């Protein structure tokens, strides 16, 4: 493992010549997405990357996937509460980070998308995101060099269809693995936490890890974390139709959290301090509030200012600079 990570440094210098690989980090569970029927290749990955950054796929040719999923923000959308799509249209939810997607079974804040390969269709077709449709894009790609030859290189056929379009995008996004933060290096015993980080880690394990479970820093469940007495966005209920799911949202990973503000499904908090203050004093009682946030008739998670700073110090050890700066994933 250590050897592989050492290798990834040379990949930063010469991405084109390095073979793109998907490796399950030693401290991670088995992946959900296994590239079945969509074998990861350099050509497929490179094509997926080109598509990811091609704004011509949107209705007014202004928005690419990369517009709202910026590498420097962990592929979230820095400083945007909600997605800003074509025709200056604002979406309704905060663009999530993109990495370690191969370990997710469901996607979006409400878990509505149930296979990684079909996730991009929503953003491509949403009138407030890219505002296009698959037929338009497939026609465009079939008529636009060098796409036919790139698809031929990747999939053996120059005839482009939505399946190969989506598979290429998935090769790019599924290969995004962030597992080389300071936290990971500490776990691998390559370095150690500072005292404050260590104190924060202990607090985190006591107070946060029930939901933000290591090593993905999410247990991938949906909970109501008491943001509102009455959630305007019904969240998970939109998918299940269950009243008990109203105001529940997917627990997000905390990896690269330092870089991916603002926070929550609607981006209401722009700093980690505000997020922790929400858990300290801001939790609203509602019928679906998670039991972990109303223990012993006490709302939220009591945190002193010192504890908050210690937790934030720990959260910053989840920043993976190698991933954020890895040219393999950059627009170039």
């Amino acid at each position: 493992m250590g050897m592989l990570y050492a290798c990834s440094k040379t990949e930063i210098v010469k991405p084109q010549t390095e073979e793109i690989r998907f490796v399950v980090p030693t401290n991670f569970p088995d992946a959900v997405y296994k590239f079945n029927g969509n074998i990861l290749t350099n050509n497929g990955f490179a094509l997926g990357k080109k598509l990811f950054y091609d704004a011509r796929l949107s209705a007014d040719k202004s928005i690419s996937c990369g517009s709202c999923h910026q590498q420097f923000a962990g592929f979230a959308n820095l400083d945007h509460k909600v997605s800003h799509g074509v025709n200056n249209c604002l979406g309704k939810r905060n663009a999530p980070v993109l990495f370690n997607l191969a370990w997710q079974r469901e996607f979006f804040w409400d878990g509505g998308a149930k296979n990684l390969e079909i996730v991009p269709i929503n953003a491509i077709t949403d009138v407030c995101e890219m505002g296009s449709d698959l037929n338009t894009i497939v026609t465009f790609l079939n008529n636009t060099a060098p796409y036919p030859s790139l698809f031929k290189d990747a999939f053996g056929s120059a005839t482009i269809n939505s399946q190969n379009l989506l598979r290429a995008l998935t090769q790019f996004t599924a290969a995004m693995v962030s597992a080389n933060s300071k936290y990971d290096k500490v776990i691998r015993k390559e370095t150690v936490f500072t005292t404050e980080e260590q104190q924060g880690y202990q607090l985190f394990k006591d107070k946060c890890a029930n939901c933000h479970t290591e090593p993905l820093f999410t247990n991938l469940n949906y909970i109501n974390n008491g943001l509102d007495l009455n959630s305007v966005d019904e969240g998970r209920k939109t998918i299940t139709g269950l009243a008990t799911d109203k105001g529940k949202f997917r627990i997000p990973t905390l990896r690269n959290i330092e870089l991916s503000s603002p926070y929550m499904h609607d981006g209401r908090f722009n700093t980690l301090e505000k997020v922790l203050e929400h858990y300290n004093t801001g939790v609203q009682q509602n019928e679906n509030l998670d039991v972990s946030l109303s223990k012993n008739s006490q709302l939220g998670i009591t945190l002193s200012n010192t504890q908050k700073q210690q937790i934030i110090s720990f959260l910053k050890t989840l920043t993976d600079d190698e991933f954020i700066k890895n040219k393999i994933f950059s627009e170039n």
Partner: protein
Amino acid sequence: MNIKNISIALFAVLTIVFTSCKKDETINTAEKGTFTLEFENQVNGTPLLLNTQNYTNANGDSFNISTFKYYVSNIKLTKTDGSVYAIPESYILMDAAKPSSLLNNLKDIPTGDYTKISFTIGVDKERNLAGAQTGALDPALGMFWTWNSGYIFVKFEGTSPQSTATDKSLTFHIGGIVDPNNTIRTYSSDFSTGNPLRIRADKKPQVHFIVNAGSLFKGKQTISFANLNFTMGGANSVIVADNYVNGLFEFEHIHN
């Protein structure tokens, strides 16, 4: 002619008939054949015409139809001996706006006489959860939900003066695979034993079905467009699926 002679004569006739039949029915089961599934869209007995024709539902509401599309999948044929042949990768999408979609050739069927057909109205759970599909399941065909991923099994759109929706619209997008709102339904029909589906290497029989768009709104629960004019999955889609399960398809005849 006495009884005995009649019996002999009858036996002789039957033998000739039987052997001549048997001769016809010599089937090389290793051979494969093709048949055509034909779907004829109607609304409660009258031909379905998009946009121009007004219809009346069981509740007495007037309506017209702008879109009518539906999936049939996992087609299975049962032989007289009870053995079942599941046609691999049988996913077909019918679209009232594309007449050619209503005639579907199904190839590589083992030869033999089949007396029953069954299929899924919609798409099985596995493909709803699978990765990017192509062919009839291509999400570009407008039968795939992206926000709550999965296939629309039956899509009916139109207008009705009784609809309380904006523009008097009717939007019935039926789908969903999770209980209690699972809308996957199965249809089956026996063929006449006297005229089974005879799959032969050198023949191309045709199985003809009537498809009644009006079945969405009657049966288990008569639908009033004032009360229900929009559904995209969920409990109301279950009401519609429970209606059409017994009335959407009607086996008409086979041309052997």
